[in-house]
């Protein structure tokens, strides 16, 4: 039993949380009011089975219909849902927070129970839900808020940007896999007959008949199922780069051609069965790897939907609200203060202040003058602005950044993995050796030259080597997925195994971003309740994280002249008295005595209360860090916050080294210094400002609830934001690399024995074929061990009263 977790979202509970909910006659703890509402609603609908069926926690519940009012605007409906036919509309929404199978079950039943909903279909693969509903009976915003309450944040999915590619890729791989599998079984069957015939004696006509039939079933396996290897080899050839596909394609083509030649001349041995098996195993490994990668891409697909769905277009007759995607270059639009610029464009006002943090990581607002370029995704800080549209939708810089991230993930990573280097080195040597052996035999005994050369090629077939890596990586990816770690860039796994330095961002990573009051010091006869109420009133509309520490019932009095000074504090007039809450130098009047605490509350310049604040550390942070230290990793804390708060967190978690007041650029400096002195480092972060550091680290991990930009730059994504997944993942990856090394050593040892024997003509072709198949099977079996005894139990169903988990399917 781990720390107590929320019954609904399975996030660790913060200390002192007292929210309870009655479930089936028992009290269960939940982390927040949103989750409580979700539990109550799910049980009220008779859908309590969800908690029994799921294998991972839900996203925290939040949201109300008002948050999604924009979904009901005619412009949005027209664009995203098309025109109503007989009052029925159809729309596809992208969902954030789809974690496990039970999600599909819950969503389909929960939304299906709403009046006016005609059809709900969830596509778990692409995290989309398609809805058909009667406009007159239920509004889309009601349905969207239902989803949000359950913990699935709905986004409008651009109908022109679909995840068709992933779907197509998956379908193609499935078909190839099955063709290879069925072909393999058939070829094996004929192979058994041929082997039996070889020992028991078989009429050559019958034998040849079996061989031609074997060829007939092997041909589609080689040319249809094995087509990715040939096209991959062609790509590598055009790029003049010897990769993994070249040796595979060569081996397939040569062995297949040789088998046909042998069948035709009635030679000793054919290899159709071994070939089909080889293709099948390779495809199986690739399919597993691809499935994991697709899941990662789907979760990143939401990135481009960070833009507002609506815009205000300035027309001759006034301003009109339109869907962002209806905008065309040349249109003029207005962006309200605090809102996100939906398109790339050119500023029409004389002056504007925008925040481009999502694009550059620079948190300070940037001044723009008339005619300057504005980028989609930046935020108008202080005042509304007008701009002329230059580029929309997919043409914006933000979208192209997102696409870049996409294609970087889709393409094979630039850096070659250890096994690939080994295989590349190996295949070149074998090819040369085969030619030499063939020449030598032509000289001594020309009648056996072809047979021996073929035996060398077949026995040394790089199958074992080329399977060594993908099978182990696929097994590792699956194991990591069970831990709640999504692998975005598989090549990072090898580096992760070497990592001995782990760097953490503080806010949102080690802490959950919440701040709490640890101590209150009072003066001038104010009691604590009143001090907190005044503070709550002052912070009512503030957006800084500190404001949430003071969330409480505000004073009933009249409030005016509310001001917020970034990084300093807030002030307001309450019932005619001027109150300030903030840093001492801001809140205190000149010459006034100060009080203990990080934040002071002052009345007309006199301090009446001081609050000591503390970051709320994630409940599994301490144990995760202890585990990291246990497996020989050094940890370091990098934060943009003030030294005192960073030091407090570092001390509580046992982190020896920390740096405070770090801007993104300074964080990169620290990172590079660490990487140059003590090898590759893992950077864990969550915020937009962490994105540049994440991009620069040898391996990077982003929290699942972090900013999209951070996730786009990360190699790994921690779903559920569980920190203890990091040490678990590192252990699994280290074991994976050990397995890969074993595989390679095995393949080497086998080849060291088999190749000389074959070159000397001691290996009859049938033995070569068995050797080739057996060496591959050993490798696949060794990799699969990672799955069998490797993965720890899933994090599911740890709630005390939950029925036994059904486990991963």
């Amino acid at each position, binding site marked *: 039993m781990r720390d107590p977790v929320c019954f609904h979202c399975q996030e660790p509970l913060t200390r002192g949380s007292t929210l309870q909910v009655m479930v089936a006659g028992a009290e269960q703890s939940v982390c927040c009011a949103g989750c409580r509402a979700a539990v109550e609603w799910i049980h009220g609908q008779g859908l309590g089975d969800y908690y029994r069926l799921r294998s991972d926690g839900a996203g925290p519940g939040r949201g109300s219909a008002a948050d999604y009012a924009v979904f009901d605007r005619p412009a949005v409906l027209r664009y995203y849902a098309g025109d109503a036919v007989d009052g029925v509309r159809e729309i596809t929404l992208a969902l954030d927070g789809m974690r496990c199978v039970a999600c599909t079950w819950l969503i389909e039943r929960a939304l299906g*129970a709403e009046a006016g909903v005609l059809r709900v279909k969830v596509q778990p693969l692409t995290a989309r839900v398609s809805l058909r509903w009667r406009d007159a009976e239920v509004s889309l915003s009601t349905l969207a808020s239902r989803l949000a309450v359950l913990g699935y944040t709905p986004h409008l999915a651009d109908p022109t940007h679909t995840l068709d590619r992933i779907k197509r890729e998956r379908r193609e791989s499935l078909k190839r896999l099955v063709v290879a599998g069925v072909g393999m079984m058939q070829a094996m069957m004929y192979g058994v007959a041929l082997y039996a015939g070889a020992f028991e004696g078989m009429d050559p006509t019958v034998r040849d008949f079996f061989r031609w039939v074997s060829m007939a079933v092997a041909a589609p396996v080689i040319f249809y199922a094995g087509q990715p290897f040939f096209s991959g080899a062609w790509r590598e050839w055009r790029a003049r780069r010897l990769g993994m596909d070249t040796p595979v394609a060569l081996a397939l083509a040569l062995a297949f051609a040789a088998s046909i030649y042998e069948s035709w001349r009635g030679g000793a041995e054919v290899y159709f069965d071994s070939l089909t098996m080889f293709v099948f195993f390779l495809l199986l490994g690739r399919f597993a790897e691809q499935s994991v990668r697709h899941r990662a891409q789907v979760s990143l697909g939401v990135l481009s939907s960070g833009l507002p769905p609506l815009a205000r277009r300035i027309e001759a007759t006034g301003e009109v609200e339109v869907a962002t995607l209806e905008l065309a270059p040349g249109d003029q639009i207005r962006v309200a203060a605090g809102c996100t610029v939906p398109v790339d464009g050119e500023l029409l006002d004389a002056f504007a202040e925008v925040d481009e943090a999502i694009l550059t990581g620079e948190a300070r607002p940037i001044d723009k003058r008339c005619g300057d370029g504005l980028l989609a995704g930046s935020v108008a800080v202080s005042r509304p602005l007008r701009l002329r549209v230059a580029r929309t939708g997919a043409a914006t810089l933000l979208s192209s950044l997102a696409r870049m991230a996409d294609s970087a993930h889709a393409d094979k990573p630039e850096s070659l993995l250890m096994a690939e280097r080994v295989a590349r080195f190996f295949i070149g040597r074998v090819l040369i050796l085969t030619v030499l052996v063939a020449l030598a035999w032509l000289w001594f005994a020309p009648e056996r030259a072809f047979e021996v050369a073929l035996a060398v090629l077949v026995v040394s077939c790089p199958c074992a080597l080329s399977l060594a890596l993908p099978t182990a990586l696929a097994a590792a990816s699956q194991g990591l997925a069970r831990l709640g770690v999504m692998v975005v860039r598989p090549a990072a796994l090898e580096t992760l195994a070497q990592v001995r330095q782990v760097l953490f961002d503080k806010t949102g990573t080690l802490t959950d971003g919440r701040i709490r009051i640890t101590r209150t010091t009072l003066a001038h006869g104010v009691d604590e309740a009143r001090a907190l109420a005044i503070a709550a009133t002052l912070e009512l509309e503030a957006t800084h994280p500190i404001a949430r520490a003071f969330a409480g019932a505000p004073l009933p009095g009249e409030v005016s002249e509310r001001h917020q000074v970034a990084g300093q504090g807030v002030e307001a007039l309450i019932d005619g008295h001027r109150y300030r809450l903030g840093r001492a130098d801001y809140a205190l009047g000149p010459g006034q005595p100060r009080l203990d605490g990080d934040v002071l509350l002052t009345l007309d310049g006199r301090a009446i209360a001081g609050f000591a604040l503390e970051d709320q550390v994630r409940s599994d942070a301490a144990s995760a860090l202890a585990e990291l230290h246990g497996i020989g990793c050094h940890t370091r804390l990098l934060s943009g916050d003030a030294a005192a708060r960073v030091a407090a967190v570092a001390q509580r978690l046992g982190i020896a080294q920390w740096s405070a007041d770090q801007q993104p650029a300074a964080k990169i400096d620290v990172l590079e210094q660490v990487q140059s002195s003590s090898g590759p480092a893992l950077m864990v972060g969550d915020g937009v400002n962490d994105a540049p550091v994440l991009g620069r680290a040898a391996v990077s991990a982003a929290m699942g609830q972090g900013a999209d930009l951070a996730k786009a730059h990360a190699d790994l994504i921690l779903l559920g934001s569980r920190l203890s997944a990091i040490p678990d993942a590192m252990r699994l990856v280290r074991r994976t690399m050990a397995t890969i090394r074993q595989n390679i050593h095995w393949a080497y040892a086998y080849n060291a024995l088999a190749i000389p024997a074959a070159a000397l003509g001691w290996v009859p072709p049938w033995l070569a074929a068995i050797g080739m198949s057996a060496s591959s099977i050993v490798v696949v079996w060794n990799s699969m061990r990672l799955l069998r005894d490797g993965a720890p139990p899933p994090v599911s169903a740890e709630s005390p009263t939950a029925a036994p988990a059904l486990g991963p399917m």
Partner: protein
Amino acid sequence: MNILLVLIPLSLLLVIAAVYAFFWAVDNDQFEDMETPALDILADDETPMPTRKSDHDR
């Protein structure tokens, strides 16, 4: 052994039929969701499922 000349081509025909059936299934969304249907059977559905109604409209 001549029977092989009939049986083996016959088995090949069956294989082709099986692969064709599988391709059809993949193209018709049968493999889009491999996990939910397995769970469906475990859920106690005491309330009639409203989603079913709508299946007729399709």
